[in-house]
């Protein structure tokens, strides 16, 4: 559901940048956590005034609603606390949008723009609201405003192109979507809409090319196959059309099986996980705003809550770790993660970040146990091996095992940092050739990394 996919934190991330990352965050999440038991912070809500006689809401529905209300409440508190912070209104607008209250969302997004007319993200959400209300002219205006003020993104161009098509302004739509498919980060949807615009203007060959590129990028784009089928029919390519139609019919049947609700809004029975992720993003955004305004306790609480809600997202745990590291409250941070481990014992990320803090505290045995747990829970995640190797090297123990662990990490992810750790481990084990080979590979992948360059020079100067 597009509505829930709007992150509460994208724009905040842009503003605050990478200031949270004290250490390099995990390059890749370890995969879905086995832990999804989340305790909602708020009380279950009362259901609507029309009541339900045929059956009460199920627990997922109650929880989903409570979570969305929590997000609105938290964002509301932020806006109240910092009335001159444009981002606070953007956050609140986003939270309202995710509950379907578009009017309230628009009100707060407008307030954001009053304070900061350059907040592109606010225009984007307002454009989405306008489109959903059927106000196409306003959608076009807002998209054009976003493009004028900020970076040109595929999402905005796609929405603009779509609105222009719906208005029947086919030539404008073609030009807009031509721009979208020319962006460096080409999106399947842009190609698809490009194809649609050309279908509308009768350029079936161009349309076919657009749809073809769309499925290159997203092989299961159902509607792109429909587009290819239709374009081929118009071009008289009937055999090819039949093949695309067959694929479309297969994919469409799968889509229909997944679609359990008639409206564009997601049935919360199926959307609880997405609701948690979206609410987590909102709370994370609130935490960042509190932090900027130096309300650290509130920030810490919300970082933690985000981490609890979205067990698979390393960003929130990394932010929580960085928070305590920056304040030199390592023990307090370790305790927080220890509690997370108790609450979500099968979440690899909890153990990972606990290990990092324990390592900083030089509690090497404890850190070792944490990283061993990471390996056990997510045996194909390179970070677990790399972190344990790094711990052994820092503690100057089990260096041979460190070398083996580094090689294992490379198996799963041949990254510059993993080769670097291998290089250090080889050197520690007096394997200079191995170290040189590894650091060269690290430099080949990340030639600008000064740490790798320094190691390389050291190795070269050492007999």
């Amino acid at each position, binding site marked *: 559901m597009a509505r829930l996919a709007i992150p509460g934190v994208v724009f905040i991330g842009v503003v605050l940048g990478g200031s949270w990352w004290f250490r390099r965050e995990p390059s890749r999440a370890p995969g879905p956590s086995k832990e999804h038991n989340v305790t909602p912070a708020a009380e279950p*809500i009362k*259901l*609507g005034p*029309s*009541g*339900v*006689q*045929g*059956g009460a*809401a*199920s627990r997922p*529905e*109650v929880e*989903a*609603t*409570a979570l*969305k*209300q929590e997000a609105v409440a938290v964002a509301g508190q932020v806006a109240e606390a910092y009335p001159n912070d444009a981002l606070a209104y953007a956050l609140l607008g986003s939270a309202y949008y995710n*509950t*379907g*209250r*578009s*009017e*309230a969302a628009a009100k707060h997004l407008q307030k954001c723009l009053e304070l900061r007319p350059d907040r592109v993200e606010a225009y984007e959400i307002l454009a989405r*609201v306008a*489109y*959903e*209300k*059927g106000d196409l002219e306003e959608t076009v205006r807002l998209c054009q405003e976003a493009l004028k003020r900020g970076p040109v993104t595929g999402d905005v161009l796609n929405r603009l192109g779509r609105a222009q*098509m*719906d*208005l*029947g*302004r*086919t030539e404008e739509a073609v030009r807009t979507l031509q721009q979208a498919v020319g962006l460096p980060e080409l999106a399947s949807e842009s190609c698809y809409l490009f194809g*649609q615009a050309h*279908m*509308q203007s009768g350029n079936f060959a161009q349309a076919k090319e657009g749809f073809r590129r769309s499925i290159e990028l997203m092989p299961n784009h*159902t*509607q792109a*196959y*429909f*587009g290819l089928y*239709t374009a081929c*029919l118009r071009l008289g390519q009937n055999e090819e059309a039949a093949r695309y*139609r067959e694929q*479309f*019919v297969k994919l*469409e049947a799968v889509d*229909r099986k997944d*679609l*359990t*609700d*008639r*409206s*564009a*809004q997601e*049935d*919360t*029975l199926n959307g609880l996980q997405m609701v948690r992720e979206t609410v987590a993003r909102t709370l994370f955004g609130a935490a960042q705003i509190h932090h900027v305004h130096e309300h650290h306790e509130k920030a810490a609480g919300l970082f933690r809550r985000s981490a609890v809600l979205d067990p698979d997202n390393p960003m929130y745990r990394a932010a929580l770790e960085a928070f305590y590291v920056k304040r030199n409250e390592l023990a307090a941070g370790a305790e927080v993660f220890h509690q997370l481990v108790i609450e979500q014992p099968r979440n690899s990320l909890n153990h990972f970040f606990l290990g990092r803090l324990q390592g900083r505290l030089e509690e090497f045995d404890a850190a070792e146990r944490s990283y061993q747990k990471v390996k056990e829970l997510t045996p194909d995640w390179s970070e677990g091996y790399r972190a344990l190797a790094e711990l052994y090297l820092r503690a100057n123990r089990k260096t041979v095992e460190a070398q083996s662990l580094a090689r294992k990490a490379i198996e799963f992810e041949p990254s510059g940092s993993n080769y670097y750790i291998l290089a250090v481990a080889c050197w520690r084990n007096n394997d200079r050739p191995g170290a040189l080979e590894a650091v060269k590979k690290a430099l080949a992948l990340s030639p600008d990394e000064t740490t790798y360059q320094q190691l390389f020079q050291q190795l070269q100067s050492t007999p």
Partner: protein
Amino acid sequence: MSVARHTAYPSCLLASWSIPGLLFISRLTAAESSSPIQLRDASQQTGIHFIHTDGSSGRRYIVETVASGLATFDYDNDGRIDILFLNGAPLPGSPAMRTPPRNALYRNEGGWKFADVTRASGLVDTNYHLGVCVGDYNNDGYSDIYLNNFGPNTLYRNNGNGTFTDVTREVGVAVGNRVGAGACFLDMDGDGDLDLFVANYVGFTFENHRISHMNGFPAYVGPLHYPATSNVLFRNNGDGTFTDVSMGSGIASLLGAGMGVIAADIDNDGDTDVIVGNDLRPNFVLQNDGTGKFKEVGAALGLAYDSFGNVQGSMGVECADWNNDGWLDVYITPYQRQLATLYENRKGAYFDDVARQTGAAAGTYPHVKWGIGMIDLDNDGHRDLFIACGHLIDNVEQFDSTTSYNARNIVLRNTAQGRFVNVSELCGDGLLPKLSSRGAAFDDLDNDGDLDVVILNSRREPTILRNDSSKTNHWIQIQLRGTKSNRDGIGARVTVTAGDLSQIDEVHSGRSYQSDFGKRLHFGLGQRGAIEQIRVKWIGGGVDTVRNIGVDRLITLVEGRGLETPPAPAQLP
């Protein structure tokens, strides 16, 4: 008639049809405060006291959302169009009602007065009524009624004396207990009598009922929560009985969630095809081979999905020639956040969704759409669009403020330049009511030569709109009477040629959203003061042509004989 005559705008503005519709409206508004189409709310003066019920109780049974259609037709052959409103019925959990709700038949007394004759007519069953079609199944000269219900369906034979008799079992058109939808009478095999196509919605029962929640608020589930169902086809045996030929006809294996249906000759091959709008499933186009065997060709013709390849929550289905090219086009009204679709007929080869390019979907996106009329509201010779709107989730505003349960209906005027413009704000007080509309019917209720509008609103009183558009344009209304073909002329193709304008239409039974209207064909003629030719191709092959017909009158064309002695102008009842 061109817009220029009404607005005195220079023609260069009219030629700029690529200007967005909304901008065009603002220019009209600048110089003139109204549209050529004027619809006045006449509901209060009619004496109609019908209140619709969907039988809801808070348990949110899906059938509540799809009630109901209506029919306008002359039930007593007095020359005035009467109205039949369909009603729901109490469902489990509903509060007890002192008087059980029933349908309501209102006889048109003339002068915008209507009398409730339901009881006298015998149409007093208390079933849960969803869809209706009207047709003279026994060719006795009186219009019969088929009601497609939640529960047992009913065929009412018109006795010719103002009363009806339930002959469902006697003639063999019972379909058991199902969730009905639209229905059509059609002559599928050209044998001169009316067969019957019955669409069914979903396999809902009280036992498999469930509800959903959106943002914590209880809501109706959608059609995909229930099994798809098949439709039923009855062949008229010619002796007053029917035979279920669903299996042999090729339709029994097709599973969908039927809503609006229409029977029309969409490939101009002289027989009647059937289009079924399916809710969140691909629409069906049942192509007739002329003998009553059908092949489903929706996807091949481009009618199964919208132009983006998305299946739609199809509600109403209507056919008319919007661009006067001699081919029937199709308009489908779908759910919220889906644009209404105008499928333009590419000479029978396929259909193209041209809603965006033509503005035929303007204003429709945020609403749930139901009844649809492709009718000439200002008699300029070009079909306009009237779209009935209203959500089916009665508390939708609690979790989605981009839409509303009650909504204004929409009028899109055909500019004759390949575009429609949204004139809803300019049509007078008839478009002001905000209700949750369902079925809509379009007929000349006051016999003044323009089409009025009747709308059934869910849980409320109906809206009756008197067409007060300017009377400067000419028109013709044509009643068909078959002699070898079915008596109503259902399925016959009529072509009216007046000067540079050639228009086609067919008589339909069952159309739009589970409703019926328009047995009298209505053609606007603009400023053309004479008709060179009217050609009728009857189902079964016969063709009649009459020439040099006067305008501004209702004529009756009899198969094989031509024009029945017409009344003088202005002598209509």
